[in-house]
């Protein structure tokens, strides 16, 4: 809707503006979609992190969430479906001073891209993965994702989902992530804080954000609109920092355990690489200088 119609004055000092590509507004997301809320939290985290934003890069896959990269005023990469993590891996290794954030959807990161996720976690690749989990493939019309809870109705499960779903935080911990947290879009303060925290944490970090898709998931399952989603999250969420991730599985209408579950220090990929090469090659080891020079 145009500003004129709404008659809302543009606030020239909106604090998120410097972090977004304002020349790309309006964005494509539906009203009351949770993705925008997560982006707001992300801009807050960028601001409070005090990082040099020229050295922060964002990589997305494909999906509604995959469009985040295109709106972030950072070096930003909208890759192919499921491959944000391996792209980010190459980017990080060639230019280690970058802080590389992967921002994508649950289908992108855990169906088509699931293999990349577990391997990047295993390697403890120094990238920060933010997953907007709307429990569905939203971009393509609300089909079943590996995260869709049992008995949910989706475009491809018209009689209800019967496949067991992934517990993403348990998966991330088991695969080796250094940091694992989950929030909902109701928990904007906590989410911003977690995002800021991972921007300063080394190693593979994972934040799952449970987020509403009112247009498809909520509507099809008679779960109301965006506001109803907030009420629902408020009602069923339970903050349990440090909870065993095995106890954090999600169901259609049951408890949502949120909090920071894992925060551990493991040497990351580049540290391990350097240590091994130095041990094996001694002085002959040449520190990687991957960037090519100009003519």
């Amino acid at each position, binding site marked *: 809707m145009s500003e004129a119609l709404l008659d809302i004055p543009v606030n020239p000092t909106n604090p998120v503006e410097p972090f977004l590509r304002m020349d790309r507004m309006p964005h494509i997301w539906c009203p009351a979609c949770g993705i925008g809320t997560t982006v707001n939290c992300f801009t807050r985290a960028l601001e409070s992190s005090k990082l040099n934003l020229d050295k922060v890069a964002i990589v997305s896959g494909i999906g509604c969430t995959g469009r985040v990269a295109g709106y972030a005023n950072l070096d930003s990469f909208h890759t192919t479906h499921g491959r944000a993590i391996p792209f980010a891996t190459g980017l990080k290794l060639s230019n280690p001073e970058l802080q590389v954030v992967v921002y994508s959807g649950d289908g992108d990161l855990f169906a088509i891209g699931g293999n990349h996720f577990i391997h990047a976690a295993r390697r403890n690749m120094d990238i920060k993965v933010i997953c907007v989990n709307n429990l569905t493939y939203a971009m393509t019309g609300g089909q079943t994702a590996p995260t869709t809870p049992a008995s949910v109705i989706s475009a491809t499960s018209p009689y209800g989902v019967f496949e067991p779903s992934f517990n993403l935080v348990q998966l991330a911990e088991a695969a080796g992530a250094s940091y694992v947290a989950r929030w909902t879009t109701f928990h904007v303060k906590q989410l911003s804080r977690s995002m800021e925290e991972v921007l300063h944490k080394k190693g593979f970090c994972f934040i799952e954000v449970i987020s509403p898709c009112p247009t498809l998931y909520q509507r099809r399952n008679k779960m109301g609109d965006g506001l109803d989603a907030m009420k629902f999250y408020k009602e069923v969420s339970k903050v349990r920092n440090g909870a065993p991730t095995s106890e954090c599985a999600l169901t259609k209408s049951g408890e949502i355990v949120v909090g920071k579950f894992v925060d551990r220090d493991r040497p990351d990929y580049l540290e391990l690489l350097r240590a091994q090469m130095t041990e094996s090659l001694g002085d002959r080891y040449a*520190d990687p200088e991957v960037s090519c020079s100009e003519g």
Partner: protein
Amino acid sequence: MHADPKGVLTGVHFLDGDHACCEGTLAAGARFSAGYPITPSTEVVERFAWRIPTVGGIFIQMEDELAASIAIQGAVWGGAKAFTVTSGPGFSLMMEHIGYAAITETPCVFVNVQRGGPSTGLPTLPAQADMMQAKWGSHGDYSIIALCPNSPQECFDLTITAFNLSEEFRVPVMMMLDECVGHMTEKVVIPEADTIAITPRRFTKKTPEEFRLFEPQSDMVPDMVKAGDGYRFHVTGLTHDERGYPSMNVETQDVLVRRMHDKLKPFENGRAIYEAEFLDDAEVVVVSYGITSRVAQRALQLAREQGVKAGKFRMISAWPFPEQHIRELAGRVKAFVVPELNMGQMVREVERCAAGKAKVVSVPHAGGSVHDPDVILKAILEAAR
């Protein structure tokens, strides 16, 4: 610009094609590779994994070829020259990212050591049956360059050419080896670094305010940037405008796809790489590439001994197809004979360019071995009649 001596193993070596190709990547300035093991190509990255820690760079073995083929592109946008290596089944998995490299104009090199297919096919035996896949394998319209070495020395030399062309035109360049060339061991001369010409990445001189990521320069190719330098650029596989922003409409699609197509015109028009012999008086021209060109050489020699005016046109660059040369020859020769280790792929291009002016004879082979020179000879003799 000349090669960085750190990566150049100057000297006379006895190497197979895969190892020579690896030395080519190092001489060309590649300091990043991501791969996934597959016969008969793995030796390229095995050597890279062994060599790179003392040169100063990174090899990472990824979880599959989808990952390897996009990790190299992340590395390129981080500032590296990068490549991956594979064979048939892995090449099929990489198709998605050949398209991504094409539309994002990411300079990078894909090495495919061809083996018999389809599917798992003949893991250890040669074929040349991915030639059409190299050009058309990813969906949509796009352009690539493909080079076909026929010796370990060329595996070294052409790998450097491949990197240079990928920087010049900002396209993915395919090194289309075959199992025979990859595993054949011969003398390889690696020259002094200061005699190896390197095409540097053309980084923009503009400020972030002036810069537009896909603004074509006079050669239709946009200037590069790398992440971390303050340009705050956006790269997408969606149809995009000059700013790099998604713009899904007919006009933007038309401008983008036409430019991606047209930017290789200067290569097509006069820069095809080939080897010719006896073309002046030729009545029959054998068009071949890769290992088949070496088998065809024998047939050619026998044909000339029998008094047949046979000539040679060896494609070193197979894509863009050396159209001008074939058209010109078609006007003055009787026939083309096209042996290849597939059921007839590049011969279709020869037929298209011959346009009925000269006869075109395909000499197919299902793969797993090379032609018997007598089969090619027979085709030459029949074509000359």
